């Protein structure tokens, strides 16, 4: 292939960027051919997000050049990028909660009849767009009533329906159940046929191997290299490029063996029912046990832990802690009973973004850090330091860094640290690694196992089958608000989990 003749659609050359005097991009280059999928890989903080934000005009580069069709372009704001045919799907969701799905998809181009919006046609058009991804979603539904996953789907559909030459997808499938990933890939292949190019950021390497032509890897703001995706390249090779050293992944067998000792359950739930959400849920978690609840989109599995946490009103059933029935009507009471919850949407539900790492880590439990209501600063710092070291939380400016400036994986570690600091007996997690990269993900898994080994009971809700399979000691499946299966670690595999989670008979 001759590069002189075949000019890349997009070239980013020697891009440089600094924040607070810290270099986050050091002469990073990439190029994108017409009609290809380029994977952009790297751990949290490697500079991927910064690079694409520069491409979209959200940030200004400090040095380097951007060329489209071989000609230098100036991208000062997102509008410039849009005019050049660059469309973003960010990891963080930006949406107007009060708009319907149809309004979101057709924003600025709603069909009209006279001065009135032609709703009939708008809904038909929206349905047509949704059909491109084979998504069965009511276009009249408001964005705020959609789940995190459904909103992400709308974002993807919106990008695809726009007139883009380059679509950048930042973790588009982070919260997708496996079958929907395939649907997105079908659409991407259709886009490729239409000569649209994709920059695809994902932490799921198997996806990269399914869909990408080439992969560009960044580490610590530097370009490690670009590799063609071909049979001779292994996932391990890419991970090594990203991390800089060899990594072991997955659960160690020793911790599994330790699991076999069955202790008295610390949390028992019997006959728990919230009308319209879930019915007759029985489950128990023992100290040292990690129980995974797996369900597909909309199965109601996340409502179960929200109910245990006092966020959803329960109609019937009982919750027992160490055999004692308790009535929890708020997260405050749940915390006092030793129950913590790591929510799915950490920016909205998990963190105070304008507070620093220290303040967020200690937010759930002040009593050991205060005397007569006054913070003992040294003690608070020591506690925070301990969790930063233990979980490997990385930030630019020490523990006084605001959460806003941390990457997704590090933010999630802060939420996790908060509940560990609060010394809970039962830790519940909702989609614990949504939008978290490979490195931070294995840190989080390792920490969950370490905490379990020390006697913490963990109840994890996830739509990520690999996650459930690699972390849980025991797996429950939920379909339409009912438990449809229970598997030991040994019994569980992709087929029987999916079968049970899709409502299949035993």
């Amino acid at each position, binding site marked *: 292939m001759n590069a002189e003749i075949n000019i890349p659609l997009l070239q980013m050359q020697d891009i440089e960027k600094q924040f607070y005097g810290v270099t986050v991009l050091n002469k990073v280059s990439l190029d994108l051919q017409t009609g290809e999928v380029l994977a952009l890989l790297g751990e949290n903080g490697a500079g991927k997000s910064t690079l694409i934000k520069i491409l979209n005009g959200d940030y200004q580069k400090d040095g380097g050049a951007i060329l489209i069709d071989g000609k230098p372009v100036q991208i000062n704001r997102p509008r410039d990028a849009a005019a050049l045919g660059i469309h973003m799907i960010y990891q963080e969701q930006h949406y107007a909660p009060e708009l319907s799905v149809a309004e979101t998809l057709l924003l600025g181009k709603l069909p009209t009849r006279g001065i009135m919006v032609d709703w009939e046609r708008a809904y038909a058009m929206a349905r047509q767009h949704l059909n491109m991804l084979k998504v069965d979603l009511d276009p009249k539904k408001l964005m705020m009533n959609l789940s995190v996953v459904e909103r992400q789907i709308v974002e993807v559909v919106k990008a695809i329906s726009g007139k883009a030459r380059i679509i950048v997808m930042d973790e588009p499938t982070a919260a997708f159940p496996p079958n929907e990933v395939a649907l997105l890939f079908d659409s991407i292949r259709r886009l490729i046929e239409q000569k649209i190019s994709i920059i695809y950021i994902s932490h799921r390497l198997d996806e990269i191997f399914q869909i990408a032509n080439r992969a560009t890897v960044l580490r610590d703001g530097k370009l490690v290299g670009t590799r063609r995706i071909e049979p001779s390249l292994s996932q391990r090779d890419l991970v090594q490029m990203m991390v800089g050293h060899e990594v072991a992944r997955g659960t160690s067998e020793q911790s599994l063996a330790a699991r076999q000792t069955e202790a008295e359950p610390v949390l028992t739930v019997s006959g728990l029912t919230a009308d319209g959400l879930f019915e007759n849920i029985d489950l128990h978690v023992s100290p040292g046990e990690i129980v995974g609840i797996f369900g597909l989109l909309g199965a109601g599995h996340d409502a179960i832990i929200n109910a245990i946490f006092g966020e959803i009103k329960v109609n019937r059933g009982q919750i027992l802690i160490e055999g004692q029935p308790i009535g929890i009507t708020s997260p405050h009471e749940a915390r006092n009973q030793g129950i913590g919850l790591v929510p799915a949407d950490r920016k909205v539900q998990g963190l105070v973004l*304008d*507070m620093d790492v220290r303040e967020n880590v200690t937010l759930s439990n002040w009593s050991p850090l205060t005397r007569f209501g006054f913070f003992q600063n040294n003690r608070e710092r020591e506690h925070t330091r301990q969790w930063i070291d233990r979980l490997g939380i990385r930030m630019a400016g020490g523990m006084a860094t605001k959460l806003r400036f941390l990457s997704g994986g590090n933010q999630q570690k802060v939420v996790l640290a908060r509940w560990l600091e609060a010394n809970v007996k039962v830790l519940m997690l909702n989609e614990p690694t949504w939008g978290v990269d490979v490195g931070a993900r294995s840190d989080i898994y390792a920490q969950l196992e370490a905490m379990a080994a020390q006697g913490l009971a963990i109840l994890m809700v996830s739509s990520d089958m690999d996650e459930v399979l690699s972390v849980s000691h025991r797996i429950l499946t939920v379909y339409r608000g009912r438990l449809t299966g229970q598997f030991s670690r040994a019994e569980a595999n992709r087929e029987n989990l999916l079968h049970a989670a899709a409502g299949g008979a035993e």
Partner: protein
Amino acid sequence: MSVNPQTQAKPAATTAVKPRIGIGSGAGLLMLYLVMVVVISQLSPYFLGQRNLINIATSVSVLGMIAIFSTMLMISGGLDLSVGATTALVGVLVASTQGALGVGGAVAFGLIIGLLIGLLNGLLVTRLGINPLITTLGMLSTIRGLAFVFSGGLSIPMLDKGFGQLGRGNIGGLPIIVIVVLIMFVGAFIVMRYTAYGRAMYAIGGNSRASHLAGLPVKRYQLTAYMLSGLSAAVAGIFLTSRLGAAAPQASTGLELSVVAAIILGGTSLSGGKGNLLGTLLGILILGTLDNAMTLLSVSAYYQQIGLGVVLLLAVGLDQVRFGNFGRFLRTKN
């Protein structure tokens, strides 16, 4: 395009590391105030005299008492527009019950009324979920009306000598009312900066949903912030009545707007989570100094209002230019 990243990075770095100081309220506002003081002292020889300075401090005391606790409330994401009306109602009730309850009893009664008004505001906001602006606007009107009902629209004198000392007495040359405000300020400053209660105010204002899900009793904290606001308005009403020797139902009309102006001027965010009391102190001083200077310079009362408005817009606008989107836009263009 050769922007030096070092110089661009610096302001952001200080905000990241020192969250409570700086931002909008620190250096810029202090500079503005110092410039104001220098200019005014050139225009009027009386301005820097000890008597005038004490005058300024006394004149902003009532505003200050309320603004301290309103700042705490606003940092937690709340808002209380009923403070001016509460000041008047408490004054009227204290003055009209002094005969029946005695001065001490009347004062205690007034404080309880303030607490109850705050409690009601807080319950309406947290339990019924009514927007704070609407809740306290409704309460403003209701309470003001009650003040007129209980007073029959007339001023009620309150000439007890001891009581009068509260608002007019001195200790070592400093008015008691100024000393009280300073003590309140220092106390509130310490609470907001060093205690769990202060931390809760910032956390709830920053993200009430996340605070709730972290296990904080958010509604209980919000309730106490409204009660403190009501109580501070009652204290202010008592001092005002003492200073004037009478309670009037129309007293402190529009005070709530001055309170909000001083707080916003001080850099506290209307949406909560950000701000600090030092900023509010500066905001109060700027409003009080400006008021005082325009009087010294015999500016007509009509123009005084315009002057206050323009200064508020200028100060907040400058802040946006320095730290907001517009400022970033200017910096990257140059």
